[in-house]
């Protein structure tokens, strides 16, 4: 099928736009989503196409953004609420973790909150400590919520559509670094191209080591795999896509083949993604382990402004290669 390279930003924009065209109960709210055309240009043109009723600029009120999405969803709408960056979602942690994620449970199924929180995530642009987070694992800690983190355009398209149509609350985290990155999308395909929640994807096959990642980490893992190839190491890249629920069967299947694993993430290292995956793999794949599972993550510091030391703190392909070299 003929395909064209599309930036992830555009794929997300297309998915969101098609869902708004398809279902009138879907609307967008957030800071600068309308007149500014979206800080990351994901909602570019939406105001003109859908009008102020469905494309709603909010004040700088993250607690309200987080909580109003829940109320609107309970009442029957399908809000897509945007946090300009995921750093600001910290201010909505209570709305997200204690309300969106739990309302169905403490009313024992009486209500549902079919909403999507979109947030631009990641760092490495000298955004400085308080604006340099990729904290998806923190949100994925809470049952009741789903957490999706696409690594390329087609995935982002299919995952966001599913997230919007699903009746559960979903936090959809979009890598700022991947927004401009082009990747192939078929010229024409089923508008209902939906990727199931909680299903990961093998992004590259290999037999020597399993690289587990999500979002931007997949990029680093794939670059590392190409570097490793030169040294005759065949890395398999597992893109989990969702931090909750976790597609561990896919990881285990790969691990049974490779018996080695390196986990790659953009987040801080402690109590994070790598921690959970490593814990699960050693717990369930103990007999297949030929080496310790390694983790590549951010340096464990508040992140700095200055470029050189910031890049020193940021994971990259070479750090993944180094980690792999320690165990193959």
């Amino acid at each position, binding site marked *: 099928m003929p395909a064209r390279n599309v930036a992830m930003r555009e794929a997300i924009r297309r998915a969101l736009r098609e869902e708004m065209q398809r279902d009138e109960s879907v609307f967008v709210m957030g800071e600068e989503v309308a007149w500014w055309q979206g800080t990351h240009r994901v909602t570019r043109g939406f105001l003109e196409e859908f009008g102020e009723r469905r494309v709603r600029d909010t004040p700088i009120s993250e*607690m309200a953004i987080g909580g109003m999405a829940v109320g609107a969803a309970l009442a029957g709408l399908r809000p897509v609420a945007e946090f300009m960056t995921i750093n600001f979602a910290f201010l909505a942690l209570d709305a997200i973790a204690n309300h969106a994620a739990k309302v169905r*449970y403490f009313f024992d199924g009486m209500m549902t909150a079919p909403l999507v929180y979109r947030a631009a995530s990641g760092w490495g642009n000298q955004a400085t400590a308080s604006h340099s987070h990729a904290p998806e694992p923190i949100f994925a800690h809470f049952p009741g919520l789903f957490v999706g983190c696409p690594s390329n355009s087609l995935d982002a398209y299919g995952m966001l559509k599913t997230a919007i149509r699903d009746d559960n609350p979903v936090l959809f985290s979009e890598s700022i670094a991947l927004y401009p990155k082009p990747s192939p999308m078929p010229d024409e395909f089923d508008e209902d191209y939906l990727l199931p929640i909680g299903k990961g994807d093998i992004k590259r096959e290999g037999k020597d080591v399993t690289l587990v990642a999500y979002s931007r980490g997949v990029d680093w893992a794939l670059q590392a795999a190409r570097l490793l190839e030169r040294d005759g190491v065949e890395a398999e890249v597992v893109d989990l896509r969702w931090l909750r629920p976790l597609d561990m069967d896919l990881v285990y299947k790969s691990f049974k083949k490779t018996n080695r694993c390196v986990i790659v993430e953009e987040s801080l290292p402690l109590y994070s993604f790598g921690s959970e995956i490593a814990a699960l793999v050693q717990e369930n794949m103990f007999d297949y382990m030929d080496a310790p599972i390694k983790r590549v993550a951010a340096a464990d510091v508040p992140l700095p402004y200055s470029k050189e030391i910031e890049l020193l703190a940021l994971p990259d392909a070479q750090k993944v290669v180094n980690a792999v070299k320690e165990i193959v």
Partner: protein
Amino acid sequence: MRSPTKAMLLDWYRQMVLIREFEETCHRLYEEKRITGVYLHLYSGHEASGVGSMAALRESDHVITAYRDHGIALILGMDPKALMAEMMGKKTGSSGGKGGSMHLASKEHNFWGGYAIVGGHLPLAAGIALEARYNGKDDVTMTYVGDGATNNGYFHESLNMSAIWDLPVVWIIENNGYGMGTEVERASGQTELHRKAEAYGIKSLGRVDAQNAVEVYTVASKAVEYARQQGPVLIEHVTYRYRGHGVSDKQYDARDDMSAELKEWMELREPIKILRDCIESEHGDMSPVLAEHEATARRLVAEAVEFAEASPLPSGYDDLLRNTYVGSESVYKSDFSVGAGID
């Protein structure tokens, strides 16, 4: 807005004595350890605030409140059986025993619940009202919020959103003088809470003596009409809590000033007595009817306790796991087994 008919007044009396009976029974059951847990916030003393204001609503309107939610649920006509069962965490409870005293709700009544995080329900209220605005309906969302909660960021952001988006919300501050042990004077720089509306350019209908159901109804009716046609409006209800903040509240035993204050409210501003006097002065002696309402309240609550105690508790992993997610049981099943130390 019409002034309340005799039938309305009598029905309010029915509601208020039912609430009082339900709440005082909850109090007794908790002392007897037949209701357990750490949170139980009673509506005794608040009755006229809820009854008078909700009388201004129509069926398609929405209601949401915090954890002091028993009275609201009863006014909406929820079954005392299901409510008492919820207090006891029974499977037959209105929230299946999952929510307890702080999380009563009824979708069929557009009652979006009781919430436990102070201020947490306020943006939900704005979101519910947004749906009405979005779909061109003129249903209002009546939202109850405590005096203490008005000092929280949720209050600020939610009221402002309701203002700029013209959301049909009636914000009712139930000012019972305290947030737990903190007097309004020590918690809010602006002690005339209704004046907080100024910060949002929101219409305020000022302060109301919320021990008087008729006054409450009169102002609430204006507010509901305003919200339907124009946008958000705020009212401050001045009321009092008879059973302290909740079951953890030991202040009234410890502080004479507070117990004296409580005594005064109960003697001079008892909402049920005030309504009774009003009924008599307007419609003569109705004691037979009122007595019947009181008897009915006692019977209904007694039956509710019986029903609740006879009901089963949720039990087993299926009950524990159910409704974490819509569908996809498998999803959380697999998550669940993770690290729970059970196989």
